């Protein structure tokens, strides 16, 4: 197909990657946005969700927040934030045009999977393990730090991993409101009927998403400490076997 051949030509032309507005710069912009939004969401969401999980309260809120989040189109949220007077900043440090609006929308978007997973992770530490910790005379804080946190960690990390890939994908939408990132290549290509360019941008975004997914999977493996895994392989009772993560939370870039 001709378009695909042209796309390949676009991708392999060095000039399209370099300089101001080149794909390399846009990719860095988008990575910066994604990681900042993810860090902000984790900083807000993790403590609250894990504390609620520790107390065993607010489950309804934690679960339903992700259902509500699914119904709100990120594009609409982003558009509203960009058009509103507040936050009235058009440029924000290295985040470029539409900066703060994109950052807020992405952070809000990353919160549901992080909160839901972290809450469920702490909540689902087996009751007998909790009771054993209480029986050993641990205080609430000790039980959280020494028992619940280590056991919940793999699931918590998988929530962050899910959020990372979703945020990266959603960050492309910023381009629909003239924001930064690789989405610019896609929308520019479409608005100027330069389809090979649009498709080239899509290919790069999809490839980076896959790379991030692989890196996150590696990171997740590191967060699940090998000693625990060997113990569970021998049939240890501490592994919390049978806990499964619902990895498929919501589509990317809604």
């Amino acid at each position, binding site marked *: *197909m001709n*378009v*695909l051949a042209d796309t390949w030509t676009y991708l392999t032309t060095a000039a399209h990657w370099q300089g101001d507005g080149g794909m390399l710069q846009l990719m860095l912009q988008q990575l910066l946005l994604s990681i900042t939004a993810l860090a902000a969401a984790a900083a807000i969401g993790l403590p609250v969700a894990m504390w609620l999980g520790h107390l065993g309260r607010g489950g309804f809120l934690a679960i339903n927040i992700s*259902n509500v989040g*699914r*119904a*709100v*189109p*990120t*594009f*609409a*949220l982003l*558009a*509203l934030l*960009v*058009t509103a007077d507040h936050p009235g900043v058009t440029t924000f440090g290295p985040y470029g045009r539409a900066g703060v609006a994109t950052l807020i929308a992405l952070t809000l978007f990353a919160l549901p999977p992080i909160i839901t997973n972290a809450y469920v992770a702490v909540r689902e530490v087996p009751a007998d393990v909790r009771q054993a910790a209480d029986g050993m005379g641990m205080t609430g804080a000790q039980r959280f730090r020494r028992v619940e946190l280590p056991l919940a960690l793999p699931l918590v990390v998988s929530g962050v991993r899910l959020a990372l*890939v979703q945020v*990266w*994908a*959603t960050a*492309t*939408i910023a*381009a*629909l*409101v*003239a924001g930064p990132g690789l*989405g610019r290549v*896609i*929308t520019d*290509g*479409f608005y100027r009927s330069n*389809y090979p360019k*649009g*498709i080239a*941008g*899509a*290919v790069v*975004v*999809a490839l980076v*998403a*896959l790379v991030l*997914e692989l890196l996150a999977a590696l990171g997740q493996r590191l967060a699940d400490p090998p000693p625990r895994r060997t113990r569970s392989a021998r049939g240890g009772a501490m592994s919390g076997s049978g806990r499964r993560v619902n*990895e*498929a939370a*919501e*589509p*990317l*870039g*809604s």
Partner: protein
Amino acid sequence: MTLLVPTAVAADPSCYSRLTNEWVCGQYLRDRQSEIVDATTQHLEITVAAVLLGVAIAFPMALVARRLPRLSSWILGVSTGIYTIPSLALFPLLVPFTGITATTVVIGLALYALTVLVRSMLEGLRSVPDDVRESAIGLGYGPTRLLVKVELPLALPVIMAGLRVATVSTVALTTVGSLVAYGGLGNLIKDGVLTNFRAELLTASVLCVALAVLLDVVIVVAQRLMTPWTRGVRA
């Protein structure tokens, strides 16, 4: 209406003029009614078509995955893999095959719905207790009748839960279709951003969320009607 009386215009400008640009504006709703209804209809059509297409593809996939366990991880892997492609990137990738049409958006959204749908169908079918299945076989049910009369009804609550997730997120995702001009309410949102038109922007966004809630309620009601036996047991 007030064009003949310029002073009245100055005293009472419409709430969506360039000067006032209010978020909430009844005048806008009245003046652009047909445009808004058209966009909502398109949004609804694209969403429903995408979810139905998703169900049509997911069902055989789930059946194959259940029959051949070796294929099941592969099938789940593919449907999850599609998920890692951002929506704004998926539509352009489909364009060389389907062109700038509503088909592109419907197919793209259906592919996204697959992940949730295949998973929930597979889980639903697996949740049917073995003894129920064996009783039905003992009563002389063939494979097809077993599936239609026994397994599907029992799997329905889990399948419908998946359908709710898929539908609600498809409504939200349809807005991105505005990239190829078929985004329903997303087209209004895009126009609202480009022309800095707040009433249009807010109206389309609110309608979009309302549509998601409405469809969710429709599915819940449908499920209640289709599975009368679940009531009372769970209460």
